[in-house]
């Protein structure tokens, strides 16, 4: 009983409860039909949100105003880079992934360069950067849908007992991210900067380096995500990352990370990503019109966050 109660105080539990409720509502509607398939589909799709969500989480944790709005453009460009490098060739998969990673990391580093050298607020720096990246992508990819090599496409769709392998790998990755956040100097430094950048500096945290690393990490994760998305959706395209502008922020905050900075948690990103996909599943299954679907999506998000409630402020 007490363990249940202590579980309920965890900020991330609400996103999982929300996901569970939405799933139950859906299979109640179909009379239990297709419940397993929905979970499989949700896991496959949530993976992509989780990967960018983790990067966005570290950025948002750096404190008010920190956010990476360049992720959609980044994902789009990296997907094109990965597919062009792979060029439908199974032997080039690893090289393509590395290229996407490098492309994303370079974008992240450039973002921080703008923020640092020109003292531009991150929200505007990354927004401006995203315009530039989009242009690069259009002129590089010409808006063409470039196909992945068959081996990579199969890998992106590979399932074991109905569980996507990509999801398993992503779980491992998020465990690593959670450890980095709570138990490594890097994560502690991010949390410190998010709470009070000046105090962090005076406590010996290398503020500049940690911020640089964080934006680069977010960019690199966007890059990898772009490559994986192109594999899963069978082709790179400029718009492939569009929905992750809002989704990456949404999973972070619905998952219980504080937008005021300095407080983050990784499990919540998973919970919130599953919640959002299952919500889409539910509304598609109910067969409501687009207007009603959007309306219900919004009301349910507000409802879940209200039920979860905020943290009591100290003093």
């Amino acid at each position, binding site marked *: 009983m007490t363990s249940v109660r202590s579980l309920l105080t965890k900020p991330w539990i609400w996103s999982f409860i929300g996901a569970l409720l939405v799933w139950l509502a859906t299979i109640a509607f179909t009379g239990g039909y297709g419940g397993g398939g929905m979970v499989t589909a949700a896991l496959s799709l949530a993976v992509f949100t989780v990967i960018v969500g983790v990067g966005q989480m570290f950025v948002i944790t750096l404190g008010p105003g920190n956010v990476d709005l360049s992720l959609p453009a980044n994902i789009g460009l990296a997907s094109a880079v990965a597919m062009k490098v792979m060029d439908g060739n199974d032997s080039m998969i690893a090289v393509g992934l590395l290229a996407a990673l490098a492309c994303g990391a370079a974008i992240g580093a450039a973002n921080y360069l703008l923020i640092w050298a020109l003292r531009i607020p991150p929200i505007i720096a990354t927004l401006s950067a995203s315009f530039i990246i989009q242009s690069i992508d259009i002129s590089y990819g010409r808006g063409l849908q470039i196909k992945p090599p068959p081996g990579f496409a199969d890998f992106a769709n590979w399932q074991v007992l109905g569980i996507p392998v990509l999801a398993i790998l992503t779980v491992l990755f998020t465990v690593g991210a959670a450890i980095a956040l709570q*138990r490594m100097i890097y994560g502690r430094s991010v949390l410190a900067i998010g709470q009070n950048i000046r105090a962090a500096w005076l*406590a010996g945290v290398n503020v500049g380096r940690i911020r640089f690393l964080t934006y680069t990490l977010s960019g690199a994760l966007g890059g990898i995500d772009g490559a994986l998305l192109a594999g899963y959706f069978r082709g790179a395209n400029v718009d492939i990352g569009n929905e992750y502008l809002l989704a990456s922020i949404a999973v972070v905050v619905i998952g219980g990370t504080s937008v005021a900075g300095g407080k983050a948690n990784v499990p919540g990103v998973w919970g919130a990503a599953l919640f959002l996909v299952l919500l889409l599943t539910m509304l598609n299954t109910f067969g409501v019109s687009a207007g009603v679907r959007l309306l219900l999506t919004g009301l349910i998000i507000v409802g879940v966050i209200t039920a979860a409630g905020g943290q009591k402020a100290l003093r």
Partner: protein
Amino acid sequence: MPRGNADIIRLNGAEKHFGAVRALGGVDFHVGPGECVGLVGHNGAGKSTLMHMVAGTLVPDSGQIGVHGDIEDNYSVSRAQQLGIRCVFQELSLCPNLNVAENTRINHASLRGFGWRRKAAELIAAKLDEIFPGHSISASDIVGDLSIGRRQMVEVARAFTVTQDRLDLVILDEPTSSLDAHTAGQLLAFVRRFVAGGKSCILISHVLGEVLRNADRIVVMRDGKVVVADAATAFDRNRLVTAMGGAEARQKIAAQIAAAKPAASPLRVRARPAAQKDGTDLVACAGEIIGLAGLAGHGQTDLLLAIFSGASRARAGIEVTAPVALVAGDRQSDGIFPQWSIAENIGIRSLARLRSGLLISPQREAELAAFWQKKIGIRTPDMNNNIFSLSGGNQQKALFARALGSDAQIVLMDDPMRGVDIGTKLEVYDLVREEAARGRTFLWYTTETEELDNCDHIYVFKNGRIVANLRRDELTEEKIIQSSFGDAA
């Protein structure tokens, strides 16, 4: 209770719990008209909590509040305001984005309508002139641009401004903690005039001399209870310290220091203030305690920050040869990580040493925290509690623990004793001397002259420059004041 000479405020059996912590355990407290009540007690004794009840910002779990002889059932801030009770809180309560006049408006619901800005500006300017002659603060200054000392001045002056509500009692919770000796003197002189005019005041301070000299009656708190309350004349320093408990046997301030110091210890810091034209350097060697004195805001903190950043990257005029840690005085903006536990707040400066392998070991972190909790006496049932569950002074102790528990050989202290109680101060003085004897170097900026007794060397600052370099045996308060006010060299 007859209305004629009724107490301004009376609390009976006030109790307050914060979770497991009992902050107040049945306190009786009252203030009469025309008296200045001194309130002292160790860090976490419950002084600020008690004052929050008086000011209406916290509601007691049980107990009664009476004001001007009437029992108040729905006591609140605005009710207190109507009844003539104001409070200067320990944590600064100004809005940094507003200017001084606008901050004044916040405390006066009646300052509105046409011309309120002018009225507010005149009101606060007049009060500042009255309390702190020569204060150099303008009503149009944005509070965020002011130094912490000036902010404290504004807040104090604001509490004494009167519009339509009456003013009977002003609570001053550690009002002098960020003021230099000169300004603190101005404030206390004003308090005496205020009380002489028939009004009342509650004065909380860890500088016992201030309380002894200015209060009519002194109330001593300990662990959430009032232990003694008596006329000020019935106390002396010893009796106060004894009543507060914890520091009974500790009266040997600065008796025997620097007895056996190695003759030629290695240089640790050589620094020249940016404004220094005459080539004077601040020099600190291993094992030395260096004092930085002078009026508040004359470049001491700037030099400490310059030395701090000089440790990680080359800076002109600064030479630092060992790792540096800093104890912040303005703990809200420079020290505390508000989301974290006490243990995490202490460990942040020592993360590299708390690792086993790549990961930070929670066990070692807890050990470090437990060690310093004991050594420096941080009052809390659990070091995993949030840092804000500590009283102001205990938060400051955690910042000391952060610096002293680190691998830093040079410790910079930026007026670090703000809000620290006398018992702890004495312990920290000993600790600093002990660590210095082991070879650590301390650079210690302080606004409390008596703390300079602990230093080997004192540099006096004025207008961002070093104007005097005194050995400890040359040190007297007159000399410091003389150099602080004298012509710049």
